């Protein structure tokens, strides 16, 4: 499903990712961990092409990113549901419309939007906040909206960047369970996190990044 082959990424003279190689199979759930600044977010950004690799080859499903035409980038992104580390909610849209946006960019009919959007909000326990605006929500609530937006269109791949960073342990456990349920239905999931509780004892692959190097692969 996802394959990195000798991938490197530089910002100016700084090496952010160096010679990364890994493979994640369809339907797998995997974690990327490592200290702050290790390159976790950058690695995820390379997958949805918010950043382009400077060296090496990346394959995501049928997309060969190195040779992907610019016009196909939206198509790639629509096959992915991403939870951004900084949420990236749209402040002048309601919570409902933020989540619905994920369906609208996919060209879903207006009449087929309401049910799944409310359904996704229910999964993150925010159904009652549908008509609020992002600024009216706490950091953790905003984070859960971002999660709802990533899962609502049932993409084949979910990338979650620190999805429990703003959540208390209990809520974090709930979100972790939600991801596992989605994964069981066949969705490939990659989660970048420092929170060891998310993968401890999960039996899933954990990639360890440090200063841009992939220093280990363990089973959580």
């Amino acid at each position, binding site marked *: 499903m996802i394959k990195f082959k000798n991938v490197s990424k530089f910002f100016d003279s700084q090496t952010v990712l160096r010679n990364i190689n890994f493979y994640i199979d369809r339907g797998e759930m995997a974690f990327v961990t490592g200290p702050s600044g290790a390159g976790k977010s950058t690695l995820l950004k390379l997958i*949805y092409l*918010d950043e382009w690799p400077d060296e090496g080859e990346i394959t995501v499903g049928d997309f060969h990113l190195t040779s992907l035409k610019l016009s196909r980038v*939206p*198509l*790639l*992104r*629509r*096959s*992915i549901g*991403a939870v*951004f580390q900084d949420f*990236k*909610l*749209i402040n*002048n849209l309601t919570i409902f419309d933020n989540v619905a*946006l*994920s369906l*609208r*960019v*996919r*060209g879903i*009919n*207006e009449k087929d939007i309401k049910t799944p959007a409310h359904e996704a909000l229910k999964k993150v326990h925010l159904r009652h906040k549908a008509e609020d605006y992002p600024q009216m929500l706490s950091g953790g609530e905003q984070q859960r909206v971002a999660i709802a*937006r990533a899962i609502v269109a049932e993409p084949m791949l979910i990338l979650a960047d620190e999805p429990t960073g703003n959540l208390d342990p209990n809520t974090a456990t709930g979100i972790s369970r939600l991801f596992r349920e989605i994964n069981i239905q066949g969705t490939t999931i990659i989660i970048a996190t420092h929170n060891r509780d998310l993968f401890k004892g999960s039996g899933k692959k954990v990639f360890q990044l440090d200063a841009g190097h992939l220093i280990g692969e363990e089973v959580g």
Partner: protein
Amino acid sequence: MAFPYSIKSAVRSLIKEKWINILSILTVASSLLIITLTSFTLYNLELATSRLPERFSMIVYLKTGISKEETQTIINNLKNRPEIDNIKYISKETALKELKQKLKDAPYILEGLDENPLASSIELKLKKNFVTESNVNIISKMLKNIHGVDDVYYGEKIAETIHLLKRSVENISIIILLSIAAGVVFVTYSTVKILFYRKKDEIEIFKLLGATGGFIRTPFIIEGSAIGFFGGVLSIIGALIFYFAITYRLSAVIPILKNLVFPLEFLIALPVIGIFLGIVGSLIAIGRLRL
């Protein structure tokens, strides 16, 4: 189909950014009003000048000393020509009688005339649709070539002056129309561009979620055409006020203004032109941005 949503978000943006939108609608409206008044002037000028030729006539002077038969042949000849509406023969005797009638207060002018110095003539009226400047010239040449015709007189200079005047008014109008239209395009262009930059962050997020260029652009194009549409509607109101002001008020002073005609087509044309120019402006504003 994301179209209903595009309309919804365009409407939301129109309301949210109401001041900039109202301002550009007003600008578009006043520009379209200038377009309307220019076209209105052109239209009425066209109407007025196209009526003139109804009265357009030529006078064919016959050579002195031609026989009655020859005169009759010429008359018959002219009668059969398709471009000639009707003809009137004025013999030199009739002409002299008319002249004497005109000069009856000063009959001494004609005293001592043994011989009638006037020539017989034929006055002919051209059919309306044949009266163009070049046609009149051709017909005049043709008439001069007829055996027995001495000279042809027509209001050459008048026709030419009207023609020239009309031409220059047309040319100036076209320049005005084009520059104002370009102005409308520019107004919607800048408005949409400003709105686009205000929403830059939002659009970045749209792109990360996989929105296509079309999905992102459509609301802006709808917004641009809405600005054009409302500008067009407003300018109709302005144009009607202007029209009634000149036909009712000013015509009391200048009666000829009562004849001005306001074509109803304008009422449909203005919003349509507004929408068209608005779409062009917004397309230029966002069409070339790399999404």
